[in-house]
């Protein structure tokens, strides 16, 4: 089952890469890009019966390996799973991550 994990630096943590990218974009004439934060994106192929089981496994894996809970938050998404509140519009991630784990 295809499962996605998004890992981002906690909002309070400085993101040097993002800052450098914004500045580069500025000098390239893309001043309209006001801010950039860079994170990691993982596509997992999980062997699970149900989306719920896939989510549980992916969450555990994200927690133990994919994300560094000290400075990062993560969010898990499973194909064919109806997301938790807040209900998202079609075709996009919830504006606020469905399950933001802020260890």
């Amino acid at each position, binding site marked *: 089952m295809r499962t996605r994990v998004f890992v981002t*630096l906690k909002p*309070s*943590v*400085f*993101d*040097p890469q993002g800052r*450098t990218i914004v*500045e580069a974009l500025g000098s390239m004439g893309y001043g309209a890009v006001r801010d950039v934060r860079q994170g990691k994106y993982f596509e997992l192929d999980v062997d699970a019966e149900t989306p719920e089981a896939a989510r549980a496994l992916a969450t555990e894996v994200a927690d133990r*390996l*994919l994300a*560094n809970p*000290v*400075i990062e938050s993560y969010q898990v998404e499973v194909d064919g799973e109806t997301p938790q509140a807040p209900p998202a519009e079609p075709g996009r991630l919830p504006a606020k991550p469905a399950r933001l784990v802020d260890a």
Partner: protein
Amino acid sequence: MIEQAAIDAHGLSAEEYRRLVEILGREPTITELGIFSVMWSEHCSYKSSRRHLRRFPTDGPRVLQGPGENAGAVDVGDGLAAVFKIESHNHPSFIEPYQGAATGVGGIIRDIFTMGARPIALLDSLRFGALEDGRGGTRADTARLVDGVVAGIAGYGNSIGIPTVGGEVAFEPRYAGNPLVNVFCLGVAEAGRLAKGVASGTGNPVYYVGAKTGRDGIHGATMASAEFDDRSADNRPAVQVGDPFMEKLLLEACLEVMETDALVGIQDMGAAGLTCSTCEMAARGGTGIDIDVSRVPRRETGMTPYEIMLSESQERMLLVVRRGREAEVERIFDKWDLHAVRIGEVTGDGLLRVRDRGGVVAEIPNRELADAAPLYDRPTRRPAYLDEAQRLDASALSAPVDLTRTWLDLLAAPVIASKRWIYRQYDHMVRTNTVALPGLGAAVVRIKGTGRALAMSVDGNGRHAWLDPREGGRLAVAEAARNVACAGAEPIGATNCLNFGNPERPDIMWQFVEAVDGIAEGCRALGIPITGGNVSLYNETDGQAIDPTPVIGVVGLLEDAGRVLTRLFPAAGLDVILLGDSAPAAAGADGLGGSEYLKRVHRLVRGRPAAVDFDRERALQRLMVDAARRGMVCSAHDCAEGGLAVALAECCIESGGGGARVDLPGPGGPDDGFGAVRTLFGESPSRVIVSAAPEGRAGLLVLARDRGVPAAVIGRTGGDRVTVSVAGGVVADVALDAAERAWTTGLARHFEPAAVRQ
């Protein structure tokens, strides 16, 4: 009115608070309370250690800058100075290994270029929990820590382009909950142009340059002075992400500014950030400083003056510039896409005045803030464990039957085995000065434009210090200096990093005081001045203190970079000569106390480490330097962990000389069954294995006799085996490739497959 709760929260004692009110002549504002709390923290004020550090020898003919500035400096000829210092980043590295180690590297590099020096070398001294058994933490935990710390040092050092050319690493159970990450940095500057962290010249503008200020590490300084417990999770927001790219720009821009004479003073914002840099610079200049925090570039919105003053955001510098030269300085920073902001000016009133949009939020006499921190003479008591721990009765043990197996086993011990897995993750060649690659002995970098080179070694054995803190300090000095001398360099200066537990515990304080005295004795005896250092206390987790760990960094000067020596036997058919005592003591535990052999074979940490005789040590080191200068020897390696047998194998491994066959004198007296063990694996100090060609040999033996250094030709290089006999009888004999396999895989095998969390 400040409540008691706030005072406690800031870790100030009642006495300290009384002193603070007395200095101000009134109750402090909350911003002032915060400022005092960080400046008077152990980390910034050295309140427990300062009076003891005064016992270090700190002057000598070459000393250009002793303790007190951002780093020390010694004269290395040609009008140049070597600027160096070592710093710890232990607590942050435990909380977040990669970023903690990375920002530690960034911090010490700033200390060096702040002095106007171009950093050219880094060394790292690391301590972790046991890799081989889970005591005090699982192997996986330790492996992950090591992996993260090494990656963090690499990530920062490689990016900024300063080679990490050497270091040391050890694994002991007592570091499991509190690893040590000490980083040494050395730079080269024009002796006449060392920059100082001083604010002088009333009316001169004060500039802020570098990264924007965020809520990073607020109370980081106090955190680094508080024991860990389960609540230390709450400190996690104090974790910072290093930005080596920003620091690279800062480094280049600051050195460019220093080329001009527009700079009055400069200091990096490390622990206690803007607070520490402003008040220390003014205190040194005997001036005042007046800044407005609303001009400080901020990364986050709604930051209070308190937060801005206490923030420990990385990669920030504070500069005092000559009035009228502002444009020039700003232009240089602009070139590097850095934006220098004028945040205030130097005043004559001796006060640190902090404003927010004009309004004064803090006003503190600088000198008192920086220098009047309460100093403590903490009580000491000899630890109860010592009597038992120091007792070692060899006759109660059974000596191993197969010494060859013991030998191979020791070669595979993580502390002895090749550290290649670590140093090949470090760019140790950038700047093309590295004339002795890591893994070959002391690190050696040439000084371009001169014929000279500098050798460096960082050493310290916590196990020795735990068994005998004073001797541990003496041994650390002796080994670091010996490593440098073995490269052919004359030791000319030292720095130290003192890693201990909670100084409020008398037994810990005793360890500290003893170690300091041992280091002082050693440096005096060898004539090596201490030009600076760092103290890291409260290295405890849940009441469990680390092994007392004094780490010494010694810098040595090679007049001729072309004459550098390494451990490697360069060819077959050379004489193998042992400098120093070859005959082990007849009986007893000499050389076995606290040894790697005892730990590995008998699972014992016991006895007293063999004492250094500094008259012998000095004679040996002077002999090494002269012999190297005169080209009498082809290689040199000191006997350290694992003793003579391990050192001999290390001279052969990956060398051009093949193996070696040596014969050593037996114990002078009745053998208690441990004679051969002591000869092979005993760790008595002041011994060096050199190789020499027939021409060099004769001269060396004469020189050694004149200097009163025992020198014995014990064998020859060559063949594909390493063989040791005692009094004519072979006691250990190993195929070189087997020894090589044990030594090269001993550490790396704990980290394959490539580790986790990228």
